[in-house]
């Protein structure tokens, strides 16, 4: 374990990613206490609308006079909440299906994988828009759509890993020693299959934040007055290019956060693979 952590520590981009992720996590948890104007999550101060960045308002104010700096900080909570819920739900659905399909084979496995293929073909945004129409646009409809379209990625990974591990020598040795199927699948195959899943989940968090931002931008996700980053960019459109700060800072928040997750995910992938693939 220590060797893995040490190796990760040597990977500068991964460390940068980890720092960003931890920072965003910090903002998400302690946002209301860190933001200078926590009330600006909802309150409006029309007297100071569209002010450029100053010492009092480092990122300027938006069209309702709300401090963009505070709203960016407060938006972290929403972004992470969506990301964790979506990826979490996708894993809960996808991982067991992958295990089931990978271990036994036969028609059950074929059926699961074909269903997975079909769902993979559904574009996330299109489904989100469709659900928004059915359920009325909200954060919930966005999260549902994203979860329903993300689980196949996990199923595929877990399926491939389970298949590989089922025919591995240590599983064979376990069968020789008398281990039953539940023990083999849950105590041995699952932990070994989780490593690529964790990598995928990390990158998926970043990806989900991006897609959620797009949905917010389209008005199909978070609704006003939520301090959602995508929503802020949507609202800023009419005031560009004069109020450049309105779109720039929420945009940068999205960029840096997604990049942070991607860098961390890449770093995790590097430390996870060699350790397992290399025998002895």
């Amino acid at each position, binding site marked *: 374990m220590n060797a893995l952590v040490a190796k990760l520590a040597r990977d500068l981009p991964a460390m940068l990613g980890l720092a960003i992720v931890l920072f965003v996590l910090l903002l998400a948890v302690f946002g209301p206490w860190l933001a200078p104007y926590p009330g600006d999550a909802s309150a409006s101060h029309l007297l100071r609308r569209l002010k450029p960045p100053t010492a009092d308002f480092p990122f300027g104010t938006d069209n309702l006079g709300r401090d963009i700096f505070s709203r960016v900080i407060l938006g972290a909570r929403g972004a992470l909440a969506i990301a964790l819920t979506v990826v979490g739900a996708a894993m809960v659905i996808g991982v067991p299906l992958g295990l089931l399909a990978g271990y036994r084979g036969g028609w059950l496995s074929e059926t699961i994988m074909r269903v997975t293929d079909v769902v993979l073909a559904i574009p996330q945004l299109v489904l989100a828009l469709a659900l928004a129409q059915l359920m009325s646009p909200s954060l919930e409809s966005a999260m549902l759509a994203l979860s329903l379209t993300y689980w196949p990625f996990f199923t595929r990974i877990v399926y491939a890993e389970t298949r590989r591990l089922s025919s*591995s*020598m*240590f599983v*064979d*040795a*376990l*069968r*020789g*020693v*008398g*281990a*039953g199927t539940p*023990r083999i699948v849950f105590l*041995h195959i699952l*932990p*070994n299959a989780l490593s690529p899943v964790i990598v995928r989940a990390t990158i998926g968090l970043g990806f989900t934040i991006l897609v959620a931002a797009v949905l917010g931008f389209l008005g199909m996700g978070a609704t006003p007055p939520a301090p959602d980053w995508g929503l802020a960019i949507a609202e800023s459109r009419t005031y560009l290019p004069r109020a450049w700060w309105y779109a720039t800072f929420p945009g940068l928040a999205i960029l840096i956060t997604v990049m942070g997750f991607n860098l961390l995910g890449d770093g995790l992938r590097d430390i996870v693979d060699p*350790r*397992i693939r*290399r*025998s*002895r």
Partner: protein
Amino acid sequence: MSGPILSVRDLSVLLGGRRGFLRKPVPPVKAVNGVSLDLHEGEILALVGESGSGKTTLGRTILGLQRENAGEILLDGKSVAGLSPEAARRARNAIQYVHQDAGAALDPWWNIGRTLAEGLLIHGVKDAAERMERVRAMLSAVGLDPESARRYPHEFSGGQLRRVLLARILLLQPRILILDEPTSGLDMSVQATVLNLLLDLRKRFSLTYLFISHDLSVVARLADRVAIMHLGRIVETGFAKDVFARPAHSYTRELLNAAPRLSGRRTSDGMFAGQTAPVGAVSRA
């Protein structure tokens, strides 16, 4: 001397084969083709053959993980054939298998203490403290530091992993060990240590070995009896020193002729001239 501890009669195993549904049907291969052999208590029987001879399939079938298509398997005179892999393993618990690649046979995410204890847990030892005690005792018995139970497979050398593997199955108190190429890929000095350990363990735990190998030098030194396998059949069986001194079957002669020997370039008849008795010879009562 009573009957053999393990007996195999006319065993056949078919592998591969695909029924045609949307694909072209492929006929199965007779990996094991009507094999009969006896294993006597306390002996080392070597199963010698090249790749494709069926020796690994035969080993796995005797173990139970591979289901036989025809034939009889008798353990202590009782039939244990015709069972599913899980049932077969339960019925033939006295037989355990030592894999060729020791590192690959261990779960990389479990420390070896836990891996060793797992076998005991599966076989009903409920008390965790008792399991740990037995694990530590067995680690010492195979020449490893009991404290190393906390470590993970990748922290051990190849030779040490082999000991871990042996410890794991010895904890299950087997009577017959099927050893799959225990010396292949090992350095000469490590090989000697492993063979020494195997002989020592056999004496201490009263074991019987089915020793699968293609290394004739090792087999000549270690085995009491030898069975030569070729294309799914056993072509010759007998006491090792007899078979190597006077091979009857042409394939046996071919194998002996091809095996690299320290004595260097072939003599014209290619036999093992001047062979002394095997190191692990057991005197028959």
